[in-house]
């Protein structure tokens, strides 16, 4: 699959609509719903594009979550909303539900070594997501403090 083609656009749309449903289910109201959905689509599309260029799953998860978190920090400030409201919805497409299911299926099927590899994938991906969120949150805090010190 090449980046920036029709298929990526379709995937962006599916992620957009899925996160739209998710944020409405968590009772978010108003125009913010559209922006969380846009963030979810952005997160998934940037994951696909970066995966194509770097061919490293963990690096692309890290970069995609960082992009999505920076997007949330900017939009949340513009809309006077807590940042975590956006981050919660935006990261959902990359939460490793798929690897988790395949790991469980492999374990039930008796393929223990495949199952442990997949479980390790799940742990690595969720760890990477956590690190990306933490890095962006700390960097933004530092930036705000530096700006306050200068002015």
């Amino acid at each position: 699959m090449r980046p920036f083609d029709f298929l990526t656009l379709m995937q962006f749309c599916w992620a957009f609509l899925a996160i739209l449903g998710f944020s409405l289910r968590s009772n978010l109201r108003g125009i913010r719903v559209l922006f969380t959905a846009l963030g979810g689509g952005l997160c998934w599309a940037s994951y696909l594009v970066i995966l194509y260029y770097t061919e490293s799953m963990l690096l692309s998860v890290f970069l995609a979550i960082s992009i999505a978190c920076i997007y949330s920090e900017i939009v949340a400030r513009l809309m006077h909303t807590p940042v975590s409201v956006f981050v919660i919805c935006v990261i959902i497409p990359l939460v490793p539900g798929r690897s988790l299911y395949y790991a469980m299926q492999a374990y039930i099927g008796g393929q223990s070594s495949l199952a442990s590899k997949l479980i390790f994938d799940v742990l690595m991906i969720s760890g990477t997501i956590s690190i990306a969120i933490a890095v962006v949150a700390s960097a933004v805090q530092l930036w705000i403090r530096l700006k306050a010190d200068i002015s």
Partner: protein
Amino acid sequence: MNKLSIQHCSKLALKTGRIILESGGATNRVELMMKKICISLGYPDCESFVTPTGIFLSLSDGESELSTSIKRIGQRRIDLGKITEISRVVNCLETDSSPKNSHNKSEYLESELNRIDTQKPYPMWVNNVCGAATSGFFCLLFGGSWSEFGVALIVGFLVATSLKYISKLPINGFLLNALAAMLIVLIAKTIDIWVPFIRLDVIIIGGIMILVPGLQIVNAIRDTMSGDLVAGTARGVEAIIMTVGIVAGSGAMLKIWELWS
């Protein structure tokens, strides 16, 4: 200046904290919001300690009076709308410097809190349709075809409907997730009998994505980063337990179906 009584102030701050925590807010946000309220109502000397299951708040007027209160948090659910509303109200309270009288501010805060607390969520059909959409589009996202999309829509709709009733039962998060995951597998397997040529795994993954604990992961990280180690650990364990519930539920149902058929 006409000052608010210390008990009334702590009551308002605790109510704000309770609403944020019950809607799934991060603990450092609760502490920040309660501090802002106490300062804008004229009690800058306040200390709070918040865990995911309870709030401790101590207020002092700087002289003789001291008020300490504890609030236990029972049920917790996800309601991002309430968190947004409350932070808007509190920021209004903080920036609005015109009424010097703290009684006006407290009346405004109290009426807004009552309005937010009794605010109705979206009607049930919106909730169910959104559950169906989430499940269906995640199925497409992970490589499902259009017929699998249709099945995932039905699965998502039925699971979102039954989650509403399951969450009314007095059970914990682990069992709730396990039951919901079992239902996903059961419905998908049942539909599989009549609809040929569908891959069940993408449908079940689409259903599972409704249940994944994204909120707990984000809150755990943000709490830990802001130094709330107790809350961060508790949320992290909650996320792990919910994940184990999902895996155990779906795995158990797959195995039961295999044995039965």
